[in-house]
């Protein structure tokens, strides 16, 4: 469906940058016929458009970059993030509320979960005074770090960034790369050692299920 809509837009002479621009206008609350048409063409199916995918890729990479171990892009976290949002994971099945409410065409069905990503995108674009995704990586990092700091101030629990960040971390640390290369994964430990020393190289376990649930 998304592919079809991009093709249709292409026939009308819009390139990807313009598409994102249209998304930005929508994000800023400036309803445009093309943006509404784009939503309509996708049938509000909940599948992500190119702009949402681009944002998912940048956010995932910024939260968990490649270091001495592979990062979120190698672990295909953006795919997970978009899948997770389209199924309402981590409480994204209901739309963000208050100042983070999603703008959408009257009568259109709620796009499951993706509204949370859109809300973060709107904030970042507003902070960027333009298109966040097309900024240089350093500038993106600084803006996202500022947004992260703001979201984690006391009383800001409803900020949509919490859910997006949670899903990015979840996608990475439950992937094979994040779970078994970055962290340790041992499905069958075979023994219990109640008191052992931690060394400088000791890595956490992704298979410590109690820690995953309650840590």
């Amino acid at each position, binding site marked *: 469906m998304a592919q079809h809509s991009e093709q249709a837009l292409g026939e009308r002479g819009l390139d990807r940058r313009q598409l994102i621009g249209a998304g930005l206008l929508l994000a800023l609350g400036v309803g445009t016929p093309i943006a509404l048409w784009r939503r309509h063409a996708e049938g509000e199916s909940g599948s992500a458009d190119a702009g949402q995918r681009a944002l998912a890729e940048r956010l995932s990479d910024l939260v968990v970059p490649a270091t001495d171990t592979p990062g979120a892009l190698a672990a295909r976290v953006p795919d997970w993030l978009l899948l997770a949002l389209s199924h*309402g994971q981590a409480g994204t099945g209901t739309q963000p509320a208050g100042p983070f409410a999603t703008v959408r065409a009257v009568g259109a069905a709620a796009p499951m979960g993706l509204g949370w990503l859109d809300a973060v995108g709107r904030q970042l674009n507003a902070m960027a005074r333009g298109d966040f995704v097309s900024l240089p990586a350093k500038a993106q990092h600084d803006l996202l*770090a500022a947004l992260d700091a703001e979201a984690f101030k006391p009383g800001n629990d409803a900020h949509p960034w919490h859910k997006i960040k*949670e899903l990015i971390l979840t996608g990475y640390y439950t992937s094979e790369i994040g779970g*078994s290369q970055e962290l340790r994964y041992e499905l069958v430990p075979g023994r219990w050692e109640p008191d052992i020393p931690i060394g400088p190289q000791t890595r956490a376990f992704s298979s410590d299920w109690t*820690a995953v649930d309650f840590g």
Partner: protein
Amino acid sequence: MSATFDAIVVGSGITGGWAAKELTQAGLKVLLVERGPDEPHGQYPTEMKAPWEMPFRGMGDAQEYLKSYPVQSGNRHFNEFTQHHFVRDDINPYTVGEGQAFNWWRGYQLGGRSLTWGRQCYRWSDYDFGANKADGHGSDWPIRYADLAPWYDKVEEFVGVSGSAEGLAALPDGRFQPPMALNVVEQHVRGVIGQQWPDRCLTVGRTANLTQEKEGRAKCQYRSICARGCSYGAYFSTQSSTLPAAQATGNLTLVTDSIVDQVEVDPVTRKATGVLILNTATGKHMRATARMIFLNASAFNSVHILLRSRSELFPKGLANTSGVLGTHIMDHASTLSGMALMHGFEDRTTYGNRPTGIVIPRFRNLDKTDGRGFTRGYSYQGGALQSTWTQGKRMPGIGAEMKDTLHKVGPWKMVLVTYAESLPRASNRLTLDPVRTDAHGMAALHIAFDHGANERAALADAKTEAKAMLEAAGGTYLFGFDQPGAGGSSIHEMGGARMGNDPSTSVLDKWNRAHDVPNLFVTDGAAMASSACQNPSLTYMALTARACDAAVTMLKDGRL
């Protein structure tokens, strides 16, 4: 299949498995009826899966859960690896009282909740069996600890319970396999509590996970993913333990996908003649007859069957001439009483996933009345743990710095969860919903349940004491609660067909036999006349083994 048996056992969970084992080993021909599908031991489909091998990384499809599992998905052990061990709420409805909530967490498959249970095994003491008589809540138990002690021995030895003997009057020691060790922080907290409060004891949770091999069962592999099913047979379940023992006798007939609609009674002899069974695969009913019936369908479902089994002789439900069937249901009032950051052990960690936590047995209202505004008591479970990557959800930060932080073993925390005794009250009761039916056209169960002031006062005290103990151990208390979760949240729902000496105030006698129907036994949680504050499954198993022994004797003596 021959439709005539010596005994019919309804339900293949923890107590049904025991009844099948005991009765077949005594030489009886037994029909075991399970309402859900078969799940063969060793063929647990998600047991060895990693999160990245699951479509939703082990967390499951939130959209599907909202539609099909809105209640079950609130269970701590419910996830993508275990969801097939829970019922679908949309096709297994029940109703609750006005303004009330009840989490009826269930598993309808071979083995029932024996696959997903918490495995904690605690004996009751005479503080518990004597409680109703002592303070007047509920009706007196017809048995005391001495009646059940030999059966606790028998059950523990077969189950394989690892634990530490502590010599506590409120929590009698049993026949234990070697205990799993406390971790370094728990060991420290044990020492502090023991020194500052000599009447309190922190010990490792007594659990049905093997630390030594038993026949056909390997010892625990320290995975702590038990609810997926364990092909090692390292924890007690119907599949790993009682079912193979029953099948080895050659006396067992097992049917799955078969719901017992009603227990049928001869109006002249007033004895149960058999059961009417709905085969959910074919939609057809069949009848099976037997010389005696054991109901082990789980507390609420056994009561549900009795309520459904109305006749001219028993218009209010089978075995309900007293009118107390369905009443006095209970579930422990539980809450997270305290979580604290623990300091001084930053250079220590553990290896492996121990499948049990700690327990601090009841210390209130034992030999002195020291509960502030409440009778009876509560106990804590929980443990010390270290954080892993999930702490990142609550932390500010992005990028390489955050990745580096989450790479490391996180800080130690200690958690204390309280289970408070639930007083038996007539107003907490099960009835047949007059309107709602399930997918098979059977009347849905209606659950009216509220925790009371006694439970709330106990939880308030538990929060105060949890904070005191965690801080005494050097912890930084983070938070805790003093209000219980919705009824059912402890998954210790019990009562509804209580045991008692008086047929006018109880449903079952001292042998778990219906006062009204001499060849009908109910030996699951329905039989409970009070709740104590211990996890109840071990007591259900001991009651079942004891009742089976009595039933076989009665049968052989021609008294049934």
